[in-house]
């Protein structure tokens, strides 16, 4: 028996004739009170995003009207409400485009043409849209609509077209609009594949009060899932390089699977909201962590997906193949389903992100899961499976047997899931080395916790259920009483004066759970994107992809145009010399020396302060036009305000290269020496230590020679060899990060001192505070010890509105205003340190 049927049964019997959608005033009042509390819950925990809170308020007000309309007006009202909600979030113009595209797609389904012709027309239309999604063909609408437009039509159009073939009753525009434009969809690119038949069949097919109450129960359950997800996401997730002991290995694989709570939470929230408008849909997930085998797991997790695949792929294949015999037909149909599942994930990713997702883990993962479902199904065909009408006798033996099955299934799926979600296959295999030793009691912690949860959960599953008994339970034991209790508890502990009494650890944990933000790891990944331009997230299980999903397909496409080129040696890449490229933010020009800068004479003129500015994308000026880089603005101001005091001329040479890591500044510095600088300005932006160690792991993995004997010695000491997995290398080099960076800084300052070059080290923070700051004190100390003139701009962005100084939500590089701020602050620091920076005698004149 499922939770939904239990919940339905547990509510009191409906009043006579209660399938007309009417609800007694008292019960309606009770629903309204609960909705107000749910809204407060959403607000207190900032559920998902500000758009969702706005949409929820809109939906709940809509519900107040909807619930009192005559039944025949409710569906058209919901269709209008859904369209208005989408327009509210996307703006009228964007919504108009979405509506027009949708109207064409739905219209094609209803053309009085043979099925095959309509299918070809739909595919042609999808092909045109796909070209537009990729950016190869322009589109007049905003890029922002793609993820939602995709989620509305990519699967539901398949279901709709499939069902129309067998539909006997005519469709209405209101129903079609309601189905595709369902109100909550405007907020969620990941949306359950609602079945069209279920959408129609279950509309107000039960007592309205019961339907609304279950909707509220499910929304609250969704919030609980999302809060648990945050707990896992913020507190438990580890990077592969952080897996160093058997205990962390267990935590790593467990956290990966538990992140799925986000999907089940969202789906409960979405379907719960649809219940408020009479759509009594089936549940989307059913205690999937307690699955007692692979087939069972497939039946319990993302049930809508399973139903969709069953309807559109499995049964049609099975019926065609059944003459081959049950076993062969089942095996082949399952293989077909898993091939389609893989292909549809690629397809889904394309519509949401605008890029393809073909990775080996995906193929292997679906192959393994598919194989296990085949084996499991064939076993079940031969030996059967115990089914129950829910009235069998309870026994502890049954609980124990089911616990063993679900516990082993759970951990096996944890392993598989960790493989699937690992960024690289070799990273996953490298994890297994830590199981060689270092076992402590801590290793048993999560296995013990999950065993207890599994056992308790299975008691509830094995326990006989009776609809009649459930309905006659006292009010306090019914599901909606539990819902109310959870809502009150969650709201209660979300209030600062309350949670601040629970001690530092508990209160800071609750505080973190109240906000939706990037975890330590995803923030680091975003930083990684910031430093390296690596924005090719390939997984669905990272919250970061939601940020990148909003990014236009051709966002700052200079990289694709070949702004950099690969070179032999330790630096790996450099800017292409004499290059001009127009981008959406302005012109990028590189001079003959491969700097993003104006041209300079090869020989430094006497009386000139010429400094090579070393850095990465911020220095290079990612996202701003040629004249707007802080390096250029600072150079102009130095010449304007410091002319003749002490130097006649100031030249700052922009040696910033997007994606450069600290060790790459060594060859970059050596390259700059050709232009005889008498100053070097090293711009550090955070995580210098980690990035230094990681870069050496990367070059060793790629088998690139390290031309610095000191760095080679460190690598050897760490036991890192050429070709070694990058994650393994990172893990081994992490303890030597300080030593590596000390060499990088010391090598530059040592040479600079010997050659009359003034070494200046600028600390440029990122626009937002974050975990990257952890390394700052150690890095600053290293820079000072190495002999740099240190200029810290730590608080430069502190009081600024980050949305005004960054390029975009998915790109935290400073925009033109940000560069102006940096240039101004740097000028102030140069003015303050003038005597020291331009000290006579220290510089090669």
């Amino acid at each position: 028996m499922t939770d939904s049927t239990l919940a339905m049964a547990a509510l009191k019997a409906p009043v006579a004739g209660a399938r007309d959608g009417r609800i007694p005033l008292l019960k309606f009042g009770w629903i309204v009170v609960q909705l107000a509390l749910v809204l407060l819950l959403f607000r207190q925990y900032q559920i998902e995003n500000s758009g969702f809170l706005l949409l929820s308020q809109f939906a709940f007000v809509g519900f107040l009207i909807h619930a009192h309309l005559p039944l025949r007006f409710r569906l058209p009202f919901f269709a209008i409400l859904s369209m208005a909600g989408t327009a509210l979030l996307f703006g009228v113009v964007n919504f108009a485009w979405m509506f027009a595209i949708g109207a064409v797609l739905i219209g094609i389904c209803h053309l009085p043409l043979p099925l095959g012709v309509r299918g070809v027309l739909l595919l042609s239309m999808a092909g045109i849209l796909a070209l537009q999604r990729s950016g190869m063909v322009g589109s007049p609408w905003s890029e922002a609509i793609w993820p939602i437009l995709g989620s509305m039509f990519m699967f539901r159009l398949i279901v709709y077209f499939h069902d129309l073939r067998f539909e006997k009753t005519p469709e209405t525009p209101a129903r079609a609009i309601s189905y595709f434009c369902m109100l909550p969809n405007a907020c969620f690119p990941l949306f359950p594949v609602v079945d069209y038949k279920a959408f129609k069949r279950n509309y107000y097919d039960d007592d309205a009060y019961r339907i609304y109450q279950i909707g509220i129960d499910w929304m609250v359950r969704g919030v609980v899932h999302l809060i648990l997800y945050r707990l896992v996401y913020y507190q438990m997730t580890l990077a592969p390089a952080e897996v160093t002991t058997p205990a962390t290995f267990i935590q790593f694989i467990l956290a990966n699977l538990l992140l799925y709570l986000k999907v089940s939470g969202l789906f409960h929230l979405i379907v719960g909201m649809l219940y408020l408008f009479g759509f009594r849909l089936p549940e989307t997930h059913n205690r999937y962590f307690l699955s007692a085998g692979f087939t069972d797991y497939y039946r319990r997790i993302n049930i809508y997906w399973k139903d969709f695949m069953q309807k559109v792929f499995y049964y049609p294949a099975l019926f065609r193949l059944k003459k081959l015999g049950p076993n062969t037909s089942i095996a082949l149909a399952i293989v077909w389903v898993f091939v389609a599942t893989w292909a549809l994930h690629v397809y889904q990713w394309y519509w949401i992100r605008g890029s393809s997702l073909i990775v080996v883990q995906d193929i292997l993962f679906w192959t393994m899961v598919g194989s296990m479902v085949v084996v499991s199904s064939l076993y079940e065909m031969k030996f059967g499976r115990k089914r129950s009408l829910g009235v069998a006798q309870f026994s502890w033996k049954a609980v124990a047997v089911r616990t063993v099955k679900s516990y082993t299934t759970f951990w096996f799926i944890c392993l598989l899931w960790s493989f699937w979600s690992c960024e690289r296959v070799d990273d996953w295999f490298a994890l297994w080395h830590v199981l060689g030793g270092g076992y402590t009691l801590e290793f048993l912690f999560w296995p013990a916790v999950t065993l207890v949860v599994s056992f308790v959960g299975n008691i509830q599953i094995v326990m006989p259920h009776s609809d009649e008994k459930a309905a006659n339970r006292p009010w306090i034991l019914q599901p909606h009483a539990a819902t109310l209790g959870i809502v009150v508890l969650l709201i209660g502990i979300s209030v600062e004066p309350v949670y601040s009494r629970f001690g530092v650890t508990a209160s800071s944990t609750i505080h973190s759970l109240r906000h939706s933000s990037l975890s330590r790891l995803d923030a680091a990944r975003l930083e990684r994107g910031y430093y390296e331009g690596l924005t090719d997230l390939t997984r669905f299980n990272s919250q970061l992809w939601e940020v990148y999903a909003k990014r236009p397909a051709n966002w700052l496409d200079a990289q694709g145009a070949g702004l950099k080129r690969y070179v032999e040696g330790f630096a790996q890449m450099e800017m292409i010399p004499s290059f001009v490229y127009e981008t959406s933010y302005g012109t990028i020009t590189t001079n003959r020396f491969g700097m993003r800068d104006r041209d300079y004479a090869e020989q430094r003129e006497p009386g000139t302060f010429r400094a090579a500015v070393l850095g990465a994308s911020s220095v290079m000026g990612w996202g701003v036009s040629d004249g707007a880089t802080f390096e250029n603005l600072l150079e102009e101001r130095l010449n304007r305000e410091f002319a003749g005091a002490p130097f006649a001329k100031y030249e700052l040479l922009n040696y910033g290269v997007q994606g450069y890591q600290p060790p790459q500044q060594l060859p970059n510095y050596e390259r700059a020496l050709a232009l005889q600088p008498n100053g070097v300005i090293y711009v550090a932006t955070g995580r210098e230590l980690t990035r230094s160690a990681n870069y050496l792991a990367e070059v060793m993995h790629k088998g690139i020679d390290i031309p610095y004997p000191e760095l080679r010695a460190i690598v050897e000491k760490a036991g890192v060899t050429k070709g070694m997995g990058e994650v393994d290398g990172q893990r081994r080099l992490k303890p030597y990060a300080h030593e590596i960076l000390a060499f990088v800084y010391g090598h530059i300052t040592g040479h600079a001192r010997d050659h009359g070059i003034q070494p200046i080290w600028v600390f440029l923070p990122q626009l937002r505070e974050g975990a990257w700051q952890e390394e700052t004190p150690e890095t600053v100390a290293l820079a000072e010890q190495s002999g740099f003139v240190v200029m810290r701009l730590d608080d430069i962005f502190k009081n600024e509105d980050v949305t005004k100084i960054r390029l975009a939500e998915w790109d935290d590089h400073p925009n033109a205003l940000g560069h102006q701020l940096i240039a101004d602050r740097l000028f102030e620091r140069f003015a303050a340190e003038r005597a020291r920076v331009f000290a006579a005698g220290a510089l090669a004149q």
Partner: protein
Amino acid sequence: MSDSIKQSVKDYIMTTFLAGESPDNLTDDLPLISRGILDSIATLKLILFLEESFGITLEAHEADKEHLDTLNQIAALVSSKLPATASR
């Protein structure tokens, strides 16, 4: 005829999927798919049984909750497939 179809299907479901359960608990309106009694494998077995026992052919789109969720629905589906004289 409908009652005999229903009884025959009920016997099959009790024997094949619900051994040890009381037949009284399998009512004509009990949702078999929603309750997890008829999953994809059981559905295939049931379809093969219906086609063989009653000499009918079922379509892929009929393997759903609208046609196979209860004994009543199954009996109605089978009846609709039988020749008019046989279903009387």
